[in-house]
């Protein structure tokens, strides 16, 4: 499979699946089969993309053969490929899980096409190299998530959705305004071109304003302090499958955008931007975990933990050293898998006991020992107990923090880790160890009946738990990939060269010295440069 095809497939496949699902609107079995089939294909194509990127470094696709910076550019570097791969894995797991947990009424209203639409938006956001295109993918993703969040129209869902919709629309408006201002300032929206132009931009004040506008826009989507309030107000309201996919993917798109813009474009005033990011990271960690401690319902606790962990991901970005960034990447990989899995497990618990309120649950370690084991693994991984994935992620971040001599954030990260442990043991003690409450209805605590139902419920959880353990046991290769990703992120010249092969770089900054060596073997893949730059159309009609 050529590189060109590999880059476009993660966007084209969900679109095709969605179109087929719309054509097969009436039949519920067809919706389920096509939905899972499409997710499987996406997972395969994402793996192929990762394989290609691993061999070829940065893949660039100039859509419509219009050369950058005039056309839309799709760029797949290591970070994009990792994110797409994780998105594929999560959607695969969740769509299998949704076979049993999503009721037929929601399937009739288009649950599966919406998941595919969401996926297209997420993958598009990961792959684009153009700011306005990023905005469009954000909106695609948001519209799909709005409908998924409200699908079913229960009281809580509607209330949560109002907050979710409002804050996300505000953040979109800020994003749009930022795009307008950055276009006025530089005359381009291509990220590589922007990176080039912002380096030598005369007015530092405007660059700072732009950085802050993007920080607010992406920060709201990523749910950082103090912009996170929409998340705990809405994530626990929809069905579990929807919660799980939101928890795994949506905020991470915000984090990805922050990493992309603050490693590529806004790197001229590190003292200001990245110190602010570090402060935000610390506050996000602490407020998130404190919020979680005050909660007494599984999914609400987990929602606050998402916020807390966004802080860890930003910590690596803010420290801005290769090791710390690698820690961020490792943390994202670990977090997406574990957090989705915890939500899925929370869903099974709610099925068993008819509620997610800790006080009304109990006794599951006896009645569902497999589930208890799976939860224990994931929860300990989230808290960072060796040899699970979370331990290595946090270890790398803390090493990065010590190396950069930022001891306050290291202390915060360790403290928050301890509190996470406390939260997880709280769920463990209440849901699994405590004897079942007397008044629990016996019929609510039933196992799913048929074999296929059990497979669809436990299969994805088992798969993700295997990944959690696997990432921990094979921390070496994952760490190597994360480090390579971090180095690539810090090497802005390589990115710019890949997107704009004809650009002449000014004297490169420190840390980007070996860029020319990386670019050499890529020269043959650039589509736009060979053909005449004026117009890709053959002839014109009168």
């Amino acid at each position, binding site marked *: 499979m050529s590189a*060109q095809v590999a880059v476009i497939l993660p966007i084209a496949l969900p679109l095709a699946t969605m179109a087929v699902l719309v054509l097969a609107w009436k039949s519920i079995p067809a919706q389920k089969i096509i939905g899972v089939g499409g997710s499987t294909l996406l997972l395969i194509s994402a793996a192929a993309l990762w394989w290609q990127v691993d061999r070829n470094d940065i893949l660039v696709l100039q859509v*419509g*053969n219009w050369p950058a910076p005039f056309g839309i550019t799709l760029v797949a570097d290591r970070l994009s490929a990792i994110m797409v791969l994780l998105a594929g894995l999560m959607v695969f797991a969740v769509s299998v899980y949704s076979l049993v947990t999503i009721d037929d009424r929601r399937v009739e209203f288009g649950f599966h096409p919406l998941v595919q639409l969401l996926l297209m938006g997420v993958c598009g956001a990961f792959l684009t190299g153009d700011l306005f295109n990023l905005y469009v993918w954000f909106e695609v993703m948001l519209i799909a998530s709005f409908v998924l969040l409200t699908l079913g129209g229960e009281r809580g869902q509607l209330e949560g959705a109002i907050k979710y919709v409002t804050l996300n629309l505000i953040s979109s408006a800020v994003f749009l305004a930022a795009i307008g201002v950055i276009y006025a300032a530089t005359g381009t929206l291509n990220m590589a071109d922007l990176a080039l132009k912002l380096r030598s931009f005369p007015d530092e004040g405007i660059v700072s304003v732009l950085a802050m506008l993007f920080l607010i826009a992406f920060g709201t989507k990523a749910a950082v302090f103090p912009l996170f309030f929409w998340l705990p107000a809405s994530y626990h309201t929809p069905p579990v499958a929807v919660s799980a996919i939101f928890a795994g993917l949506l905020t991470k798109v915000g984090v990805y955008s922050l990493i992309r813009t603050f490693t590529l474009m806004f790197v001229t005033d590190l003292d200001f931007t990245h110190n602010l990011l570090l402060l935000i990271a610390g506050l996000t960690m602490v407020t998130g975990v404190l919020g979680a401690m005050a909660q007494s319902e599984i999914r609400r606790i987990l929602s606050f933990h998402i916020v807390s962990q966004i802080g860890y991901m930003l910590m690596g970005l803010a420290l801005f050293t290769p090791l710390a960034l690698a820690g961020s990447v490792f943390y994202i990989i670990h977090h997406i898998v574990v957090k989705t899995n915890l939500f899925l497990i929370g869903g099974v618990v709610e099925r068993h006991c008819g509620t997610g309120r800790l006080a009304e649950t109990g006794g599951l370690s006896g009645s569902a020992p497999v589930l208890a084991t799976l939860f224990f693994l994931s929860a300990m991984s989230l808290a960072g107990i060796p040899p699970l994935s979370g331990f290595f992620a946090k270890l790398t971040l803390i090493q990065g923090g010590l190396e950069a001599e930022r001891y306050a954030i290291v202390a915060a990260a360790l403290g928050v880790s301890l509190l996470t442990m406390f939260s997880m043991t709280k769920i463990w003690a209440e849901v699994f160890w405590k004897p079942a409450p007397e008044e629990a209805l016996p019929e609510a605590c039933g196992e799913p009946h048929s074999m296929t139902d059990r497979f669809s419920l436990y299969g994805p959880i088992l798969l993700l738990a295997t990944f959690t353990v696997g990432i921990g046991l094979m921390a070496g290769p994952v760490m190597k990939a994360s480090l390579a990703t971090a180095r690539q992120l810090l090497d802005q010249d390589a990115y710019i060269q890949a997107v704009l092969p004809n650009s002449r770089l000014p004297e490169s900054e420190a840390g980007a010295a070996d860029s020319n060596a990386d670019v050499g073997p890529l020269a043959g893949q650039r589509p736009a440069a060979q053909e005449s730059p004026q117009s890709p159309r053959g002839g014109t009609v009168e």
Partner: protein
Amino acid sequence: MDSVILKTAIRFLLPLLLLASVFLFLRGHNEPGGGFVGGLVASGAIALYAMTCSAAAARQMVRVSPRVLIGSGLLLALGSGLAPLFFGRPFLTGLWTTVTTASLGELHPGTPLLFDLGVYCVVTGVTLVFIFSLLEE
């Protein structure tokens, strides 16, 4: 809505509007116009018909379900984007060919026309879904 004027007028307006939508769609090839506007005009015409007669009658007139229009339109647009991949060109690159006809002279149809047709179908389909579900509520 029970209006004699509209009911009489729609007989002439409907074909005219649909024709105008096709005209706009084809004009979009090289001048302002295109599938989006064309689709909106077409769905406007059908909406007018649905309001004067009934949503059920309009559904019958369109024959295909709006969802089929959306799905096939999406596939058509996507297919026109993927087609250049088979010729080793990037996604969405325009492929053009020249057709010489007796009556119209030289024509240059290409994949952008297919893409626009897909947009036309999707826009019509989506608008019709809105209108029908609003009218039938």
